């Protein structure tokens, strides 16, 4: 049976072969594939760490703080969770391009640019989910912490620490979004072979070129990475629940 894909006729049995080849690529830790996976992890982990450092304090302060415009900011951050990656990519592209305000740093089409784009994309997600978690804790802790004389800022910091295990969910949601998106890294990274090519952009490119084995291999790795990270976080939360209550 033949199917048509991008003006190429592909034998459906190719899919079977593709899977096999893909599996061999993964099993053999193919250097090309390995480099792409490593860069993906580096970029998305860096972006997630930055997003947590920025987004978690913002989320906690939105949960316990009392300042004008708080409600507006809550709505804004919730809304920004749905930012389209291509739009973020475009904005960061404009900022980093030669003529842009940050053009002098020459970051465009570098991994650094990809980290920036993903951090921008993911920070609202981390902030909004952190706000929800901390707000729930605040209903339990509010009177006790105020009774002990904790300022709002101190209370926010305390609840971030106290919720450190449940907040892995917020970090994970951010990481999941970062590692899975294509649009932003494609635009600001440029998908340059060996420099800014990550799993998602490679999958998109190789699929359109018709190199299904590599695309599929990367797809498998991508799914495996996301599952493994989630499983580890789940184990951590279970342990924390038993150990700290």
């Amino acid at each position, binding site marked *: 049976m033949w199917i048509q894909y991008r003006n190429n006729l592909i034998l459906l049995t190719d899919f079977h072969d593709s899977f096999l080849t893909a599996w061999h690529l993964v099993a053999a830790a193919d250097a090309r594939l390995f480099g792409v996976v490593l860069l993906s992890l580096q970029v998305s982990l860096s972006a997630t760490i930055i997003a947590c450092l920025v987004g978690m304090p913002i989320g906690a302060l939105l949960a316990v703080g009392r300042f004008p415009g708080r409600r507006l900011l809550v709505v804004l951050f919730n809304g920004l969770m749905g930012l389209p990656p291509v739009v973020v990519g475009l904005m960061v592209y404009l900022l980093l391009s030669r003529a842009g305000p940050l053009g002098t740093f020459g970051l465009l089409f570098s991994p650094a640019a990809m980290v920036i784009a993903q951090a921008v994309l993911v920070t609202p997600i981390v902030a909004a989910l952190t706000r929800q978690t901390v707000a729930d804790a605040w209903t339990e*802790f509010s*009177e*006790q912490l105020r*009774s*002990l004389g904790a300022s709002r800022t101190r209370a926010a910091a*305390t609840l971030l620490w106290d919720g*450190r295990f449940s907040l892995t969910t917020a970090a994970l949601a951010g990481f999941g979004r970062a590692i899975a998106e294509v649009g932003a890294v494609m635009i600001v990274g440029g998908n340059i072979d060996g420099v800014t090519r990550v799993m998602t952009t490679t999958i998109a490119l190789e699929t359109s070129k018709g190199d299904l084995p590599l695309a599929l291999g990367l797809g498998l790795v991508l799914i495996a990475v996301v599952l493994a990270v989630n499983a580890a976080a789940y184990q951590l939360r279970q342990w924390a629940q038993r150990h*700290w*209550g």
Partner: protein
Amino acid sequence: MNASPMNAGVKSAWLSLDSLSLHSAGTHIVDAATLSFTAQRTVVLGPNGAGKSTLLRLIHGLLRPTSGNLIWPRPLTQAMVFQRPVMLRTTALENIIYGLRLQGHNATECRTRALAALEKVGLTPIANRPARLLSGGEQQRVALARAWAREPQLLILDEPTASLDPASTREVERIIGEIAAAGTHLLMTTHNLGQARRMAEQIVFIDHGRIVEQTPVEQFFNTPQTEAAQRFLKEEIP
């Protein structure tokens, strides 16, 4: 024990309420409460929803009155223990240290004072156990130690034994008694009338947000002055 002026002959008020009110959505949760606290140990009694907890929170500063004033002849440092102990996800010891850090003590002093407080509530052996995994009674004792370590001049307790078994209740009462014996003013609510008899010098009875009567403990239980208090005692004593 230091002989404070409060304990001598004629007692002066350590706190006066001047028509203190809290309104919410058109109802008076606390309605023009005017009274002077003179006894070192005062227990606030009243039916559910009478406004006891709210009154305590107004005095502690957790709630802001709609109108009226709190008059402190001299400001007292306060600590409050709630019905349900709230513990951070760390050890019992660290929970007490946290409360001391917020008072601005240095690390060494925090540790020393926290350990001393744990010993006073009899929980030295569980100092390094995760606080949230302790039993309800143990958690409440940690909460008392956290309050005690801060050496408050006024300790406010909102139904501190409401969810505890008899043994834990006895232990908590012992600890509260010891704190009071050191000269700390006590202001508490309870639904346990035996406890009120044991702990109080003076009873403040409130109903529907209004102060109905304020009488010495013996007098309150033997010859309550108001009909509302008589009804309350008749219904509550088995």
